[in-house]
């Protein structure tokens, strides 16, 4: 309760101030709608928000899944083969500096206009980097005592990877996943801004904004925010379940 109360109070105060500022005419409602107006739209549009969130959420989930699997597998390969790791880290850094969202319109042109694949690709690529880099760091950071112990047990190669490297890297994998989970939602939503299917939160936001229906646009933004939060919290929960009590 003590941990929940302060942020809750601050949040309510901010909302109240926001409401007051708008209703007292300090900010025009078409620039920033009042929270009450957004709340009203949330209620009216709840069915649409839900189905749009499902569509965007599925894209984010598929992206999160393939991006993480690729990230973990490639990190395992890179930690195993010196050459691959020497090459992959700088390449990953360069690719990471690319504005990947900007690839969305290009990818859109490669697939049919009704395809969800480009969005899932963008989400996956964005997920890949934090998972890959964190996992690789985890796989490389082996406690020297653990290394000596496994040598004394005459255990090497795959046994060593399976018993020490992988479980030792798991907390790092989850750090990557936590960062990636919100990124996946952001990527899936923003990728919709560049046309294609009109079924997700991103396309709803752009179309509402195009009709100057700002409270409605904001209602969908709130939906996107909640979706990102859900992804983050589920990852956090998974981490608590998988890791031993001590490590979390």
């Amino acid at each position, binding site marked *: 309760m003590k941990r929940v109360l302060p942020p809750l109070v601050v949040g309510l105060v901010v909302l109240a101030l926001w409401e007051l500022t708008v209703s007292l005419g300090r900010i025009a409602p078409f620039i920033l709608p009042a929270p009450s107006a957004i709340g009203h739209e949330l209620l009216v549009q709840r069915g649409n928000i839900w189905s749009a969130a499902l569509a965007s959420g599925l894209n984010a989930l598929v992206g999160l899944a393939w991006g993480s699997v690729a990230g973990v597998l490639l990190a395992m390969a890179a930690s195993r083969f010196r050459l691959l790791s020497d090459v992959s880290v700088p390449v990953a850094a360069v690719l990471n500096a690319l504005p990947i969202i900007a690839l969305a319109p290009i990818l859109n042109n490669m697939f049919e206009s009704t395809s969800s694949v480009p969005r899932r690709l963008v989400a996956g690529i964005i997920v890949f980097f934090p998972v890959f880099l964190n996992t690789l760091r985890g796989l490389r950071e082996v406690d020297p005592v653990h290394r000596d112990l496994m040598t*004394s047990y*005459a255990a090497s190669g795959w046994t060593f990877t399976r018993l020490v490297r992988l479980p030792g890297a798991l907390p790092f994998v989850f750090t990557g996943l936590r960062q990636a989970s919100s990124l996946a939602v952001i990527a899936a939503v923003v990728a919709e801004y560049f046309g294609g299917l009109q079924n997700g939160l991103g396309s709803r936001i752009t179309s509402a904004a195009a009709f100057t229906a700002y409270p409605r646009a904001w209602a969908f933004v709130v939906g996107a925010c909640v979706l990102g939060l859900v992804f983050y919290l589920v990852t956090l929960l998974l981490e608590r379940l998988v890791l031993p009590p*001590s490590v979390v």
Partner: protein
Amino acid sequence: MTAVSVSGVTKTFNEGRSDAVTALSDIDLTVAEGEFVSLIGPSGCGKSTLLRLIGDLVSPTAGTVSVAGRSARDARLRQGYGIAFQQAGLFEWRTVRRNVALPLELRKLSRSAQRARVDEMLGLVGLSDFAEHYPAQLSGGMQQRVAIARALAVHPPLLLMDEPFGALDEMTRERLQNELLRICGATGTSTVFVTHSISEAVFLSNRVVVMSPRPGRITATVDIDLPTRDESVRQSPDFFGFVTLVRKSLREAA
């Protein structure tokens, strides 16, 4: 039979480079079966390196190391020794039980045999009630006891210990020393024990090997002949006599 035999061993790190360091020079050392030998000396005298040579965690530049009549490498591949370090080095994602069981798993013991052995070992170090705990839920002293249980789990004829009690408080340290002596006495294990502490070396050992740095070499060997090894010995004149003797040897070595 001798448990450990080191003859004419020299170890140079970064050999042939400008930053070459001779960690050990012309070392001869034998440890008899069931004997408890401590290696003592200032930092950098190569005592840990000597221990690691016996465990085949590093290889000698010259000379030979044999463990129970085999080469150090053969002994390691047959899990011929148990080892414990200053850091407990437990696997934090495994419970206490599964930590102790790890060397047994690698030896492909059956599950029931593993379970029985782990129970025996945890009983030995007084941690039977903590089998399902994770390492981070234990105190430093308890973690160290788990590490010792793990080192003893395969019933090794030889125990190698690198300052295993170095990070512990004095009370815990003395209690674990007593436990270690009891365990080694009961199992007939030969032990090579690296330490910084003179009183610890005297209390535990049949023989204290004094080393000096740059290059690491053995400068003296003190046989410790105490009537018993219980708490009362720590206050006895004999005990202080040996402590003084080891201290003098260390001074002369420096």
